[in-house]
């Protein structure tokens, strides 16, 4: 699959969005809707490479966005959003076209609805994937890394391609089915967040194919879901490069559930991820491993505008080596075993000053470094401790 250079695609897309926004100013208010969000926070994760390398308190916790939805006809709509993100070293910093797609409603009645999406769309398959950059839609400032690994953010957040969504009311409750096919064009900077700055070649996502099913039973406080992902990547090495030409396959099986009560709720996701690497580290190299992780988050409505959060997040890089011992031995003891897992406990507090102005604070206690950069190359220099902590606070406003 050939793509135009990412910079040119992004700048053209932004130009298109600006032109559309200009045109939309001439339209009636019910044909175009505008929304946005602004947030700024502070974060510190000493003794890791998660946010920065000097262990200082960082203001690199900024999420800004503006979006529009333009109703073109009875069954056609155009939607777009531009965001500016700064998460320090967690993902690529800067302005980007978050989504821009045409939504064609192929069928809609009281029993079922079918939509087709064409363009750049968000990942609708996991509990928080569609709005992981929109701070007030998340339970926590930093999402559980077992499922929402920040190094994979840029390739997991959405795709350029084609997607369908079906919702249907049945005697068993509401069923929602999502299907998508597409790819994300990786910039050099995005590649280096995945593969480290030693990577000088070109990384490409050949495709990502996903499907998910959500079920909301009638008169039940539960929602449950399952999703599947299959994606191939290729790497073309540069003339002078640490890595070699190679290929990777990533496959995910995920289950999720959510229980809603009046003053509390539980959300949980479980993931098993297969990572199959061919060549890449060296010609003829082959590794096929299965990681596993899951989290459960509980929120409790302490006071009318205040929610408390308790989150447990567990991740093992290899489900057959949960202690990381074999992994460490395979490197001759060079990489400590704690790079094979990452278990995390989070406590948080959220206060709503107004319906659209919120302050969130949280503290993480972590054991292990398996979900710190880089996924393919442990950073021994900066991830020095098996036990580490992180705190963050973020003020957010939306309209």
């Amino acid at each position, binding site marked *: 699959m050939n793509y135009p250079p990412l910079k040119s695609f992004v700048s053209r897309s932004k130009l298109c969005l600006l032109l559309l926004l200009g045109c939309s100013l001439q339209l009636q208010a019910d044909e175009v809707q505008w929304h946005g969000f602004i947030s700024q926070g502070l974060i510190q994760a000493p003794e890791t490479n998660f946010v920065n390398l000097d262990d200082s308190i960082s203001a690199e916790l900024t999420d800004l966005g503006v979006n529009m939805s333009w109703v073109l006809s009875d069954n056609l709509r155009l939607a777009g959003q531009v965001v500016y993100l700064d998460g320090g070293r967690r993902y690529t910093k800067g302005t980007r076209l978050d*989504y821009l797609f045409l939504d064609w409603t192929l069928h*809609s009645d009281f029993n079922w609805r079918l939509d087709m999406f064409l363009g750049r*769309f968000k990942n609708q398959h996991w509990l928080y994937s569609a709005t992981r950059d929109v701070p007030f839609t998340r339970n926590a400032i930093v999402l559980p890394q077992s499922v929402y690994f920040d190094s994979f953010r840029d390739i997991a957040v959405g795709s350029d391609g084609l997607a369908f969504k079906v*919702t249907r009311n049945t005697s068993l409750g509401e069923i929602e089915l999502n299907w998508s096919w597409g790819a994300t064009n990786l910039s050099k900077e995005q590649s280096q967040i995945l593969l480290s700055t030693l990577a000088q070649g070109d990384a490409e996502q050949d495709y990502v194919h996903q499907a998910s099913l959500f079920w909301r039973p009638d008169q039940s406080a539960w929602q449950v879901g399952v999703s599947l992902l299959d994606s191939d990547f290729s790497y073309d090495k540069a003339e002078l490069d640490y890595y070699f030409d190679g290929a990777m396959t990533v496959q995910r099986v995920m289950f999720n559930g959510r229980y809603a009560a009046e003053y509390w709720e539980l959300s949980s996701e479980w993931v098993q991820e297969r990572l199959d690497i061919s060549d890449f580290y060296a010609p003829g190299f082959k590794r096929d491993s299965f990681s596993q992780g899951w989290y459960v988050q509980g929120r409790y409505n302490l006071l009318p505008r205040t929610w408390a959060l308790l989150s447990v997040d567990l991740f093992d890089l290899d489900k057959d080596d949960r202690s990381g011992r074999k992994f460490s031995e395979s490197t001759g003891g060079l990489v400590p075993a704690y790079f094979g897992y990452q278990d995390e406990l989070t406590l948080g507090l959220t206060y709503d000053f107004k319906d659209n102005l919120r302050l969130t604070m949280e503290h993480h206690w972590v054991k292990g470094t398996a979900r710190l950069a880089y996924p393919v190359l442990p950073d021994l220099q900066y991830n020095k401790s098996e036990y580490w902590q992180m705190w963050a606070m973020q003020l957010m406003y939306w309209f």
Partner: protein
Amino acid sequence: MKTKLVIAGSVLWASTAFATEVITHPAVPMDQLTVNQLRGIYSMRQQKWPDGTAVRVFVLPAKNQVHQTFAKEKLQMFPYQLDRIWQKITYSGLGSAPVVLSSEQQMREMVASTAGAIGYIENPDELSTLKVIRITQ
């Protein structure tokens, strides 16, 4: 015994005082909706009435008592679940959130004057300009 009667009376009064009814523009071609159909409308998935008129969804602010009673009694959902659905569709491009009105008076006026409109109020009395919709399981 007297105390029990007073408590029972208070509960009855409280439930009557905060009873909400679903209302639509008088030309909407339906007299009743199931809870699932109403959820479909307030989840912004249902776009049209059976006659093809666009559905226009109106709500009161999240902290409004009538909104909270409507969510729990009519939709059988909690207000924070509705907020999450609307935020997800608004900020991932899947659609638009309902129009938030500031008062019940504005709700009466907007639903009465907007083709395809649906909303809710406490104890509707202006039956000539509004249609009350019965909600069934």
